[in-house]
């Protein structure tokens, strides 16, 4: 059974191998194919089998398909296929090797051993199983048989069809060769004939081509000859586009042959073209033409190689001229301000006539837009032009600012400028005019703020300097007071006005200003800061105490001269106090209310206006100026005293007959001081209280103790000192603070002045040596001074002490200090008093 199947398999293998060989055209291995004629009956008998086989195969296939559809392939079929595939596989050994010969499955392998298999089967299975196995195997064998048969039939049918095909082919190929040769002959003849035709026609064709070219040339020549007339026609019909097209077309020819053959023609057409150019230029320059027409003209001119740039320059010049019309004139500003006044008065805004300016700006804008269309590449010039306009505008503004323009006027001007800018910007956005003008406006506004403060400063210094004038005229009763009030008013009112003005700037909704709002409030704050600094400098300049930093400020120095009125210094001092206590707080409030801090400055720099610092500066300024005033006053007295003490020979002084006149001068000076002080400074409110204070025991007891210590320390050294007596005497007197802090009150200032003068008096006395009479003279003078001084002065104790000190000093410097007898002293004083009262009946 096994041998059979394997033999069948081998034949089938030969058949299958040979089929592809034949198809590939290789030698046919099947022997009977070589004799096809012998095979015919065989084939016929086989055909019956084949049909039969086909039918069965078909059936099987159907069955198989069904099986595949319903259940997985049964064992048999699979084994079958495996077998087949292993047979056809290139290397059959690989497939068989792994199978174990010791199992029942080894039946399918090549190393199958039938005996072994039988033994295995016998050993493993009982009878039933063996029987079943037998049945199965018989069925399988039968199946394989049929399959084998089927395969063989299949092979045969293929052979048969192949032989059929070969047979048919053989019969058809015979006789083809002759036809082909015939065809070749015919093609050759056709080719030779066509060559003949070609050569015979060649000459004619060339002729035709030449003629054609000549005709074109002739047409061109005709065109050129016609050109002048054609151009003329174009000029008539104003078809400049065509004309230019024609001319530019003809131009290369003119260039090549213009000097020889077409000379006349060229001239004529050039003339025509020059007319065209003129016309085009006229067109370009005429404002009445439409912009497109003008632009067209420009393009045409450019095509004609006409120097358009020069035209552009000309047009630009024209524009620039119109720019001149645009220039804002100062009178225009005045007009504008009048208009704005009208606004304020409530007149109908419609009544505002369109000013010449508005007209010209519209013209300008139109011109620019036209220009842009005409000369598309002219932006650069236009931008420059527009910027020039803005620059000029702002130059005017700056001039106005220099000329103290009111804020409303400034606003009007700025508004005009801004509308101009916006208009121009519409047609020429590349110029970035808003940004540009913003910058310019920034500068202008900054200048405006600065100049406003400058004017404010001037106002104030003017108000102050009026002291000089009015005191010379002496018409007014209280010139200093008037000056103080005036300058106070100038300062406060001026500052408020300035703030109001700036407020207007802030409130205005003009686009230009809105963007600068932050800056403006910063500048205002900075402006105040700088203003107060400048004012501070100005004060010191006016007071004649030139601080080195502000020396060449020249603000008022020229008008002022070197002599400074002491009263002015006092006014300045009081004004400083006013600024510190009233003006700066008010202004700070106002700024806080209406200038919400501009953030443009950056927070790290802090606020621009620092009222605290300013207050401190002016507080110190007030004090310094007050000191300066006192100094000036005492200096005057000092000169007086210096003369008094250096001139006479005190050692040979004669007996005192009357109170010396320097006392009069001194008192006169004091009176003047008092009157000035009375005008300016407030009265000390707590006069009584302070007097007790300065006499109070707290301070003096402390200093007394200190003094005790010191005396103890140095006692040993000065045991024998004669001075001790005086010193001890002084000890038991109250320690008098001579140099107390000056306050801004009438009494304080006068007292300080008196104290300083008396101290100077003492110092002058100490530098001299007196004889008895000289000493007595001093004694008399001092004695006389006592009463009037006490009346004017708040701190009687100190003055008393100082007067005593002068007498002590005189006695120390006297060779023979014997005082005047009291009756004589009294008599002399009475005499002087009588005289004094005569002269000044009012003063006691």
């Amino acid at each position, binding site marked *: 059974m096994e041998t059979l199947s394997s033999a069948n398999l081998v034949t089938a293998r030969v058949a299958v191998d040979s089929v592809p060989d034949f198809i590939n055209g290789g030698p046919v291995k099947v022997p009977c194919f070589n004799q096809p004629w012998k095979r015919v009956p065989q084939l016929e008998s086989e055909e019956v089998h084949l049909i039969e086989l086909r039918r069965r195969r078909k059936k099987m296939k159907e069955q198989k398909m069904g099986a595949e559809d319903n259940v997985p392939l049964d064992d048999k079929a699979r084994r079958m296929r495996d077998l087949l595939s292993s047979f056809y596989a290139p290397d059959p050994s690989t497939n068989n090797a792994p199978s174990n010969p010791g199992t029942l499955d080894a039946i399918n392998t090549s190393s199958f051993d039938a005996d072994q298999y039988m033994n295995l089967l016998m050993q493993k299975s009982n009878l039933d199983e063996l029987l079943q196995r037998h049945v199965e195997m018989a069925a399988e064998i039968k199946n394989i048989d049929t399959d084998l048969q089927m395969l063989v039939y299949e092979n045969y049918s293929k052979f048969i069809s192949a032989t059929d095909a070969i047979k048919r082919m053989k019969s058809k190929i015979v006789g083809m060769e002759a036809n082909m040769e015939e065809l070749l002959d015919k093609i050759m003849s056709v080719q030779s004939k066509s060559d003949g035709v070609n050569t015979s026609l060649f000459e004619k064709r060339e002729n035709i081509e030449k003629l054609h070219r000549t005709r074109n040339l002739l047409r061109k020549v005709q065109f050129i000859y016609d050109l002048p007339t054609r151009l003329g026609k174009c000029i008539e019909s104003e078809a400049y586009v065509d004309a230019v097209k024609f001319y530019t077309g003809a131009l290369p020819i003119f260039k090549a042959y213009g000097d020889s053959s077409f000379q006349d023609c060229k001239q004529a057409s050039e003339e025509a073209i020059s007319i065209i150019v003129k016309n085009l230029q006229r067109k370009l320059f005429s404002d009445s033409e439409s912009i497109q027409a003008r632009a067209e003209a420009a393009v045409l001119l450019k095509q004609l190689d006409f120097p358009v740039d020069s035209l552009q320059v000309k047009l630009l010049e024209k524009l620039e001229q119109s720019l001149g019309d645009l220039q804002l004139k100062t009178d225009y500003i005045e007009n504008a301000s009048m208009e704005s006044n009208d606004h304020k008065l409530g007149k109908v805004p419609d009544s505002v006539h369109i000013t010449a300016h508005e007209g010209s700006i519209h013209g300008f804008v139109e011109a620019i837009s036209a220009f842009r269309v005409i000369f598309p590449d002219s932006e650069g010039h236009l931008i420059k032009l527009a910027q020039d306009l803005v620059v000029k505008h702002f130059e005017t503004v700056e001039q106005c600012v220099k000329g103290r323009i009111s804020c409303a006027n400034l606003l009007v001007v700025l508004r005009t400028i801004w509308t101009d800018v916006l208009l121009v910007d519409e047609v020429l956005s590349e110029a970035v005019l808003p940004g540009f003008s913003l910058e310019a406006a920034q500068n202008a506004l900054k200048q405006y703020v600065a100049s406003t403060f400058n004017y404010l400063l001037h106002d104030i210094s003017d108000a102050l300097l009026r002291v000089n004038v009015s005191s010379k005229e002496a018409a007014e009763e209280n010139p200093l007071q008037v000056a103080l009030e005036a300058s106070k008013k100038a300062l406060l009112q001026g500052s408020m006005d300035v703030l109001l003005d700036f407020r207007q700037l802030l409130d205005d909704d003009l686009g230009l200003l809105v963007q600068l709002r932050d800056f403006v409030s910063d500048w205002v704050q900075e402006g105040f800061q700088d203003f107060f600094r400048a004012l501070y400098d100005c004060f010191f300049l006016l007071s004649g105490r030139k601080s080195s930093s502000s020396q060449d400020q020249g603000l008022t120095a020229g008008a002022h001269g070197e002599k400074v009125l002491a009263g002015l210094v006092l006014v300045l001092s009081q004004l400083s106090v006013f600024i510190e206590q009233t003006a700066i707080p008010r202004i700070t409030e106002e700024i806080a209310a209406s200038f919400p801090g501009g953030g443009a400055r950056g927070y790290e720099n802090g606020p621009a206006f620092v009222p605290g610092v300013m207050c401190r500066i002016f507080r110190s300024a007030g004090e310094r100026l007050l000191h300066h005033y006192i100094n000036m006053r005492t*200096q005057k007295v000092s000169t007086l005293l210096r003369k008094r003490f250096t001139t006479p020979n005190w050692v040979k002084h004669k007996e005192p007959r009357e109170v010396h006149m320097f006392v009069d001068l001194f008192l006169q000076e004091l009176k003047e001081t008092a009157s000035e002080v009375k005008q300016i400074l407030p009265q000390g409110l707590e006069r009584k209280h302070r007097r007790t204070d300065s006499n109070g025991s707290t301070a003096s007891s402390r200093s007394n103790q200190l003094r005790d210590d010191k005396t103890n320390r140095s006692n040993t050294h000065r045991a024998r000192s004669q001075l001790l007596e005086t010193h001890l005497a002084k000890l038991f007197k109250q320690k008098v603070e001579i140099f107390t802090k000056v306050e801004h009150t009438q009494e304080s200032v006068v007292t300080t002045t008196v104290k300083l003068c008396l101290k100077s008096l003492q110092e002058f006395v100490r530098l001299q040596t007196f*004889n008895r009479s000289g000493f007595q003279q001093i004694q008399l003078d001092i004695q006389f001074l006592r009463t009037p001084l006490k009346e004017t002065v708040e701190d009687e104790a100190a003055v008393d002490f100082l007067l005593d000190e002068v007498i002590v000093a005189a006695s120390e410097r006297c*060779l023979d200090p014997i005082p005047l007898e009291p009756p004589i002293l009294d008599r002399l004083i009475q005499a002087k008093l009588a005289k004094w009262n005569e002269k000044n009946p009012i003063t006691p």
Partner: protein
Amino acid sequence: MQGGSSGIGYGLKYQARCISDVKADTDHTSFLTGTLSLREENEVHLIRLSSGGTELICEGLFSHPNEIWDLASCPFDQRIFSTVFSTGSLFDIDLPFYGLKMETGLIVFFAGEGESYGAAIWQIPELYGQLNSPQLERIASLDAHTRKINCVLWWPSGRHDKLISIDDENLFLWTLDCSKKTAQVQSKQTSGMLHYLSGGAWDPHDINAVATTCESSVQFWDLRTMKKTNAVERAHIRNANYDMKNNHILVTAEDESGIHIWDLRKPKSPVKELPGHTHWTWAVTCNPEYDGLILSAGTDSSVNLWLAPTSAEEDATSESIVESPAQQAGPLLNSYSDYEDSVYGLAWSSREPWTFASLSYDGRVVVESVKPFLSRK
């Protein structure tokens, strides 16, 4: 009253105006001072700061025939000094003194219309400590003056045989020979009409330059030609002092308007202004060692210590708050106000440059140290 009791006190018997640092004494910090008493016998005190620096010791006490208006110690010989003195009136003079002067016959009195002034160079006798009543030895009299003498100047920087004396009208240059005990006028110059000289200062940097103060200006002289070279127009200058450290810097004190620092190359306006004193600023002196440290004494019974460096950079302390009588806070380091009377005499010690002596009119010498303030520099 800050730092009031830190000073070391010393009492003179009488009132006094002038004190001078004994520069030539390199072993001790000592000062010379002379009294100003019209009617008593005047004294010259040689005071020495004890080694511990806690006490002032009277090293020598010498009688001086007249009241002393000016006293200057010789910078190269510690035993030599000069004085300017006045004798009061010839007619009213007390007899014993008069007699003494007549006896010695050394002083030539010039007959003014009342007071008479003289100037002399003195030498402290050797072994003065062992003598009972040591007498000053007069080396020379500067007796060419006819007017009120203001001061005698030594060249502050070292040994120089010239002396300058200034009276109301004239400037004298003397040649001093200590060994021969003679002084001769080398040259003389009159300041000119209407310029009453009041004092002067000798430039420590230039042996030929002298500044004199007068009513309306400071004048500068070249001693070789005795010609005026320069002038600073400024009224009422009381005192002038050259900066020892910086060339061209002169400090002046004015009655009412405080202290000014001048750069002599720019005489138009002062380099710096200090407020000075409440009343007159009487004397001003620059520290010989520390740059910009200035002392001023005033008739408001106080001595102020200033720091005002003249170099370009500005003091950054101007913002601080003031509580002293002066209005400007920055340059004022301290105000010593523990004095009973006007302070006229002021001298830095050149040996211990952080120490100064001040003399108030009541005859009290106070020596103070400025060390606590130096650290601020």
